[in-house]
């Protein structure tokens, strides 16, 4: 059932291209079995002065954003822009079709009016908002992607099952493979590994 160590399956050439190797380190990762332990450990690690932290979990863990310093999502601003764009597109379309391109008097009704434009304007606003939310969320998250160095962690497959991983990235100025691994063990993490990538 357990998948093999992802990076070891790759041919040498591909490993080179992806920048994999024992000398290239992505992060130190350790696992916890309960979400509360992850949050508590994350808070302590952050208090030690680490700034580039991440966590991986099978479901959103309450309080983790605050504990490891995840900035609040910017998605709302992108979405509101496209919502307004959706409404304007609909009104523009109805006006252009009714008044400019194909003016036709039906039942003595005006060529353009806000009252009968409401349903289509509403629906297009929703449609634009939905696409902005969907595409914007994946865009901000940098997904889809087929590969990420964290896949090399031997317990990675349990982050979508029942384990809660704490990540200290190598990009952190305070990062040192040995010391950081010790810090993770010190806050109660098990299976602590230096992950290449």
């Amino acid at each position, binding site marked *: *059932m357990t*998948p093999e160590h992802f990076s070891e399956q790759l041919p040498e050439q591909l490993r080179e291209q992806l920048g994999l190797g024992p000398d290239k380190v992505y992060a130190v990762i350790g696992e916890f*079995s309960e*979400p509360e332990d992850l949050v508590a450990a994350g808070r302590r690690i952050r208090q030690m002065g680490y700034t580039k932290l*991440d966590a*991986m*979990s*099978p*479901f*959103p*863990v*309450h309080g*983790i*954003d605050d504990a*490891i310093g*995840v900035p609040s*999502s910017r*998605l*709302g601003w992108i*979405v509101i822009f496209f919502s307004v764009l959706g409404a304007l597109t609909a009104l523009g*379309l109805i006006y252009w*079709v*009714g008044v400019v391109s*194909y003016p*036709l008097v*039906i*039942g003595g*009704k005006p060529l353009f009016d806000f009252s*009968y*434009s409401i*349903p*289509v304007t*509403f*629906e*297009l606003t*929703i*449609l634009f*908002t*939905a*696409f902005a*939310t*969907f595409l914007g*969320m*994946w865009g*901000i*998250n940098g*997904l*889809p*992607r*087929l*590969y*990420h160095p*964290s*896949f090399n962690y031997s317990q*990675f*497959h349990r*982050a*979508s*099952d*029942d384990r809660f991983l704490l990540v200290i990235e190598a990009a952190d100025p305070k990062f040192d493979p040995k010391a950081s691994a010790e810090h993770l063990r010190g806050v109660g993490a098990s299976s602590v590994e230096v992950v290449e990538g």
Partner: protein
Amino acid sequence: MSAVTQNPALMEVNPPLVQSDTYHDLTEQVSAITEAGVLETPMKYWITLSITAGITLLLGAMLTYLVSRGIGVWGNNRPIGWAWDITNFVFWIGIGHAGTLISAILFLFRQKWRTSINRSAEAMTLFAVMCAGIFPLFHTGRPWRAYWLMPIPNLDLNLYQNFRSPLIWDVFAVSTYLTVSALFWFTGLVPDLATLRDRATGRIKQVVFGILSLGWRGSARHWSNYEKAYLILAAISTPLVLSVHSIVSFDFATSVIPGWHTTIFPPYFVAGAVFSGFAMVMTLLIIARWLLNLENLITMKHLENMNKIILVTGSIVGYAYATEFFIAWYSGNPYERYAFINRAFGPYAWAYWTMITCNVISPQFFWFKSLRRSIPVMFILSITTNIGMWFERFVIIVTSLHRDFLPGSWGYYKPTWVDICTFIGTFGLFLTLFLLFARFLPMIALSEVKGVRAQEKQMFKGQELVAK
């Protein structure tokens, strides 16, 4: 890892929604369905699937016949220009509404019990809207010209849509509804597809789930954006679902036909849609729960809560029938009065009283707790509700049309065999898609159920501390 346990006294009052010992057990249970080999899946599943697939072929045959012969093979003709096609369209669209209600509105109200059922209810929405779309699409007679419904410049006739017509509003509403429901559903699926990817053993499964899960790794930064996106999608789906059936009702309400031209239609249609949709979710879940042994995830509490919603919406529908009748009398308009008296006592009285029996009387049994918690009772009532709601649309559409203002243009609509087989065929398509979904994709929203389990565990810990 310890089980979700709590004080036995509290267990009676407030049993946990997720009755499972560990997160891993949940993963195993839900993934086992999709990971089972062909022979490990119960034979009854494959037998059921082959029957529904056969009925889907019937749909294909009927639609081919319709296209080759023209829409005259359906029974609608003057004065009843809209009949089973629109009845079935409104029926299927209404079914879809429960899925969005469960996934969006109950999410906004923080109703945690929704998590076990929202995935399948959302899937049901998608399939129901697909079935609904078939009817207006083929009622055009030339479905390959369907792009004329879209505001794209067409060179054939150089025509544009009339944005003053509710029919074009309907096109926008239904296509937006289908698209947004699909995006919402897929967004919810991604973390669970990642779970399947991480467990996949075969090469094909690894590649397929690897691509579908978009490289999801459960990062806290990703979850933060993901939760925001989920909240936004829920927040826009809520007014969307209310708008869809309101706009469907505008198709009727903006006309000047007695029996259709009423302002009560939008709320009355929405309540009816939720009513019928919950009944359909109930029918499907009782079957799926039994077929796939999901009693610990879809508990009696879930079913009882849904029955309460059926009772509420059914009562709203009953109240709407009474209001409609009262206003028809109170308006003093002889045509309006005639339309309603004709509904109840005219040639279609059998359809009207079937509707009243199924929609107004039968949900009232759910006032009794014992009946609300009885699987056979709720299964039968879910079926009668769907029959009743189909008849509601039939009564509204056909009885309002069959006696025009002049007695010379009176008629009596009878469906042809093509009408009947097409409608049966859409059930085949609906059930086939649902069965394929239940077998090949995670039917329970795994990441959400795990989240609820974590919260319940915390809550019960707190309760025990208070008890001490």
